């Protein structure tokens, strides 16, 4: 089950903890994987580590032109049409709303939400023709629950969920599924930045009693990418140790 041989996937934010784990897992299931991110040296290292069937395509997701061309560059790099898009790249610019600057709002919306729209749109043409495709947006538990200090981030993540549900309805009849994965607190450079008191407060709310791992998000991505998940669309798969049960 969950064999991805012969399929081609693009993973954005592949230099991050979750994105890297997703890329490795899709690759391990047999997919060609195109890694995208801003840090070219890290991308090249990861592509080199994965070896065959791994390619790098750098992109600046805050630049519309760069995003619009990314699917094309990925297909060129892999020499195959795109079957799976994992829009994983995201940033935070946290702060209370009363002190939030315009650019903190705009950057988060542009990189987290607008790039998802642009990448999905450019992936859609080929997927429609081939009558198959998998679009996966990596959103966040806070897109559903909210979180103080993250009005911009939670709005962008909730936006991804609404976008996915609408697109899933548009293209469901063409064999294309559109789903989100909503990680809870996952051990990553983003959570490493929290202090002990913050971590303890978070752990007290997680029934599993620990942070999640990138591999646990990657497993969800493998499932949603697979042929076996063809009847799952417009959904958000929450992987959060039970911290929010939705």
């Amino acid at each position, binding site marked *: 089950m969950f064999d991805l041989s012969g399929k081609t996937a693009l993973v954005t934010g592949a230099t991050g903890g979750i994105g890297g784990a997703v890329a490795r897992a899709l690759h391990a299931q047999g997919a060609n994987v195109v890694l995208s991110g801003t840090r070219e040296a890290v991308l090249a290292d990861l592509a080199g580590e994965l070896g065959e069937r791994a390619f790098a395509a750098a992109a600046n997701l805050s630049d519309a032109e760069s995003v619009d061309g990314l699917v094309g560059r990925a297909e060129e790099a892999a020499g195959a049409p795109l079957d799976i898009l994992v829009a994983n790249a995201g940033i935070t610019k946290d702060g209370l709303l009363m002190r939030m600057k315009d650019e903190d709002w705009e950057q988060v919306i542009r990189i987290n939400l607008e790039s998802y729209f642009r990448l999905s749109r450019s992936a859609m043409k080929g997927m*429609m*023709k081939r009558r198959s495709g998998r679009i996966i947006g990596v959103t966040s538990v806070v897109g559903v629950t909210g979180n103080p200090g993250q009005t911009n981030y939670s709005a962008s993540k909730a936006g991804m969920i609404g976008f996915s549900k609408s697109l899933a309805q548009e293209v469901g009849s063409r064999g294309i599924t559109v789903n989100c994965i909503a990680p809870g607190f996952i051990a990553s450079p983003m959570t490493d930045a929290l202090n002990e008191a913050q971590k303890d407060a978070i752990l007290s709310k997680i029934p599993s009693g620990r942070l999640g791992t990138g591999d646990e998000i990657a497993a969800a991505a493998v499932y949603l990418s697979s042929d076996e998940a063809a009847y799952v669309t417009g959904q958000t798969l929450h992987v959060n140790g039970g911290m929010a049960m939705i």
Partner: protein
Amino acid sequence: MSDTLERVRKIVIDHLDADPDKVTEKASFIDDLGADSLDNVELVMAFEEEFDIEIPDDAAEHIQTVGDAVKFIDEKTAG
């Protein structure tokens, strides 16, 4: 029958799995041939590819029938 009409008809018949007898110049993709709005988008994409032209969105909106498509394509490829 013009060459353009024949090529357009072939695309429409293939894509919509339509009865060839019904695919006349006057046939509306949506009203007569059972297309939905997504089919219309796909047909326009297929015309673009077949005739190697670009059909802008505002023009695509006015291509509702087989004849509309033939007329637009003939005008576009004539110049």
